[in-house]
């Protein structure tokens, strides 16, 4: 373990704690704790983070098993707008449908348009 390499007490391993509030809910990050191993981490997680809060499931993960983004990588998440692949890039559709509807109501004999 890298803690050991640093000469730190191996009793203190870092675990990240996740939980689910409802059966069909998403898994949520809660907090971290120090424990000597997984078994201990999971019993400690319950009372450290769910004394009042409800949980239907609890996960613990050794922190060193998690690959996180570096700061450069995080910066790269700040995307340029890609309107063409999102619904908000098509905000003009309603108006265009309405235009057709108006034309129809005004009696112009163009092709019929189904109601949107």
């Amino acid at each position, binding site marked *: 373990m890298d803690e050991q390499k640093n000469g730190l007490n191996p009793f203190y391993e870092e675990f990240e704690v996740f939980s689910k509030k409802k059966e069909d809910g998403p898994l949520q990050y809660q907090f971290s*704790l*120090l424990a000597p191993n997984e078994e*201990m981490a999971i*019993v*400690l997680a319950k*009372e*450290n983070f769910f004394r009042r809060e409800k949980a239907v499931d609890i996960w613990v993960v050794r922190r060193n098993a998690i690959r996180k983004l570096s700061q450069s990588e995080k910066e790269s998440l700040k995307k340029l707008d890609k309107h063409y692949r999102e619904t908000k890039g098509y905000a003009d559709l309603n108006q265009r449908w309405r235009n057709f509807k108006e034309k129809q109501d005004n009696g112009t004999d163009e092709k019929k348009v189904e109601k949107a």
Partner: protein
Amino acid sequence: MSIESNKQELTELIYQLADDDFIHAHRGSEWLGLAPHIEEDVAFSSINQDTMGHATMYYRILSELGEGKADDLSHLRKKEQFRNAIILEEKNGTGEYLDSPNYDWAFTVIRHLFYDVAKKIRLESLKQSSYEPLADAARKMLTEQYYHLLHWKIWFKQLMTSTEEARDRMETAIKRVWKDFGGVLTLGPHAEKMVSAGLIEDEAALRERFIDQIQELFNEVNYSIDNEPLMIRGDGRNGEHTEDLEHALKTLSEVYVSDPQATGW
């Protein structure tokens, strides 16, 4: 069972259950802030709160049976009136909780583990009790018992299979607790009547289950013990107690008795 004709064995049994939980939770609560590890401190405290909560449920049942106010029962009775097992009143260590406590974690792990194994067996039996309020309380308490046991089993296994020093300390603690743990397993002088009234199963059956389960835990960590749990310092069910209980009662009732005129705290 009728409450009138079985009142004595009924209340005796509930006093045993209540006082065991109460004193045990009191000893546990003295650890608050002093456990080996901050995360453990928090977890341990939940267990003590649950156990103190269970004691409160029992004292309320006694109260409904006309024994007096729950707070009076827990804070005003004399040492001889307590029915808890002697091993549960024993101090956590040589010192006081406010000043160089010198508490023994191995002793605590063993005492709590053994107690929670015994308690679960007792609660399972009480689910069938002829006294419905007791059966109902037992069902509620059992929901919390699973976590307590899980917690102490993990501590037990890990300390028993770690360093030589830890193993030594744990074995010493087992021997120490074993010598008096018989006091938890007994139902005291009214045992027969309790059983014939259908309040709880008989002592021998409960005891056997306890020994089987402990044996299983011992096997997992390659440990064995020859004799059966003893009761060398006397029977708490019979009002026999040590100085440690006297001392604990003085501490836990200090404020409650400090103003006899007070009607609320």
